[in-house]
């Protein structure tokens, strides 16, 4: 895929008020936007810039990251324009407003769902919710997707211990003489 370097300027043209910044790394262009502008910019990219294919929605936890970042969690949408053969990453940052070691609903970790633009976003956003605890409004089915319903954590957060909090030990032991 070729560089998508011209697209941030086009987004800037369409959204003169929006706060944007651009990063580039190894030919990959990352457009960093504010959470409030996110959905409109995604809509614009899909409808007017030809990014009709959603490659992935994922997130990054920047807890303890060596260089300072605009927020604790980065949520990113990887978009592809087949006609121009371009990949563009749209990224936004959110900051938690409460301790992140639980599973309580944090009103600061909420974004608007992109399921109305790409149906493929449904499971990806569920995964971001499951692993990072970032919720999406207007999502048709906001449940956990990989871990089970009562899982007591969001395992890809950096403050979740690698070996878990005992989830893998809390099971019934079946013995040889058990009769069902």
């Amino acid at each position, binding site marked *: 895929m070729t560089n998508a370097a011209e697209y941030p300027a086009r987004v800037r043209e369409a959204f003169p008020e929006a706060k944007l910044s651009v990063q580039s790394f190894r030919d990959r262009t990352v457009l960093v936007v504010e959470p409030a502008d996110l959905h409109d910019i995604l809509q614009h990219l899909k409808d007017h810039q030809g990014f009709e294919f959603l490659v992935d929605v994922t997130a990054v936890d920047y807890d303890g990251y060596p260089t300072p970042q605009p927020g604790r969690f980065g949520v990113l949408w990887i978009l592809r324009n087949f006609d121009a053969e371009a990949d563009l990453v749209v990224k936004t940052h959110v900051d938690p407003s409460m301790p992140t070691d639980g599973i309580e609903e944090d009103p600061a970790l909420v974004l608007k769902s992109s399921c109305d633009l790409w149906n493929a976003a449904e499971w990806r956003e569920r995964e971001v919710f499951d692993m990072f605890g970032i919720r999406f409004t207007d999502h048709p089915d906001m449940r956990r997707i990989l*871990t*089970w319903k009562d899982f007591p*954590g969001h*395992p890809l957060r950096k403050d*979740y*211990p*690698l*070996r*878990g*909090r005992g*989830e*893998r*030990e809390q*099971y*019934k*032991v*079946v*013995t*040889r*003489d*058990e009769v*069902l």
Partner: protein
Amino acid sequence: MGLEATMPVDNILTTQVQAVINWARRSAVWPMPFATACCGIELMATAMSRYDLSRFGAEVFRFSPRQADLMIVAGRISTKMLPVMHRIYNQMCEPKWVISMGACASTGGVFDTYAVVQGVDQFLPVDVYVPGCPPRPEMLIEGVMAIQRIIDEDNLPTDGNGKRIPLNLALEPNYEPAAQPVDVSVGLS
């Protein structure tokens, strides 16, 4: 627990019938392949013609636990999969045996994370552990043969607490490890 529970003890005929039953069981151990990861590929190779598990009467892989005697846990068991494994184990008819195949099933292997059970023997009665990552088919065949020896030793003698008295079967390697008969052509000065 199976047929022998209905038979009278202290009867000379019983031991003979037991020997026949053991012979029948050991000659047709039908495995239930609980293959969740890469070890499952080696399990398939074991059943294929090159290694040919049917030489030991264990080639009939049954995907219904009702028809299987031996559960081969091949691969890492995630915490979400463990209740499924319990259910399948409970659905198997007595008598039944369990082989824990590979480092992951026995100990969790390198996957020391929240998502992987650190050894299925914490939650299931495992009869034979087959080491390796993955074990070679010969190794798994040794494991099935160890199950056959357990059956020959009258099945499941327990100590009253539901734990089986260890039979202390140790497998001897049937080959001599030796250096490759190839001259070293690099790295010499």
